[in-house]
């Protein structure tokens, strides 16, 4: 029982995003589990998923899928924002808060 609940900050953030979207009515939990279960099955075809990073990578992919399928988020917008964040990390001096415009 000594293992941390979340192995990395982004695991926790991804988890909270799904919980928060469900709470706001963006989808129901059974709807979420259907999409997430499908992504897990797809990801599990090429390797045996470990329940850690693999699991949360599938979680993130399921979030992207459910949000784009429902028109909550555009795939292009997400991709542009992802790159904006990458650029911000690469150009922000160490120790300063990383922000996007």
């Amino acid at each position, binding site marked *: 029982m000594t293992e941390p609940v979340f192995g*990395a900050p982004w695991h926790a953030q991804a988890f*909270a*995003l799904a919980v*928060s979207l469900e709470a*706001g009515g963006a989808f129901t939990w059974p709807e979420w*589990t259907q999409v997430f279960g499908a992504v897990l099955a797809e990801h599990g075809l090429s390797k045996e998923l470990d329940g850690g990073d693999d699991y949360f990578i599938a979680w993130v992919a399921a979030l992207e899928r459910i949000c784009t399928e429902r028109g909550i988020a555009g795939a292009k917008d997400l991709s542009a924002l992802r790159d904006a964040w990458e650029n911000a990390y690469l150009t922000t001096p160490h120790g300063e808060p990383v922000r996007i415009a």
Partner: protein
Amino acid sequence: MPHDHADDAPPHSLLPPDPALRVKALESLLTRKGLIDPAALDEIIEIYAHKVGPRNGAAVVARAWTDPDFRKRLLEDATEAVAEMGFTGRQGEHVVAVENTPEQHNMVVCTLCSCYPWPLLGIPPGWYKSDAYRARAVREPRKVLAEFGVTLPEAQRVRVWDSTAEVRYLVLPMRPVGTDGLDESALAALVSRDAMIGTALVEAPA
């Protein structure tokens, strides 16, 4: 991990892995659209990282062992019974308690993803979410149990319960012999998370 920089370039912030950047993108976009509130996300993380965990389930088990009326209510309607103890919330909307007996041992899996009674046990451990456990728990439960160090008498049936988004299971383990003198909180301290998933037994203190 240190990495090289040109002498005149100041070190930039550590670049998070790809999925972390994708999470940032989702968070930015959904916040802009007013669909999520970053403060609410922090609160959710705080609750599940620190406030909700298997101690809740252990308190339920200990009460069931010491209060026959509560045990009866728990087995009839666990959602209602655990709500009496204040354990309500997401992923606890429909909880079913399954009782271990000398005839039957129960263990829980979610073959679809990772459904789990959050208000009672918190967030599931990595192994519960792994393909290996999800695939094998149903197919070869005794072998999986043996890997957890649990060997059951041949005569004891193993029943595997597959959780869903609608129904989540809590295993009510058998109270170990030799614990008659223990009060509810001392009993709760004996009950591990895994015992409530069905991959461990509860042992009397040495």
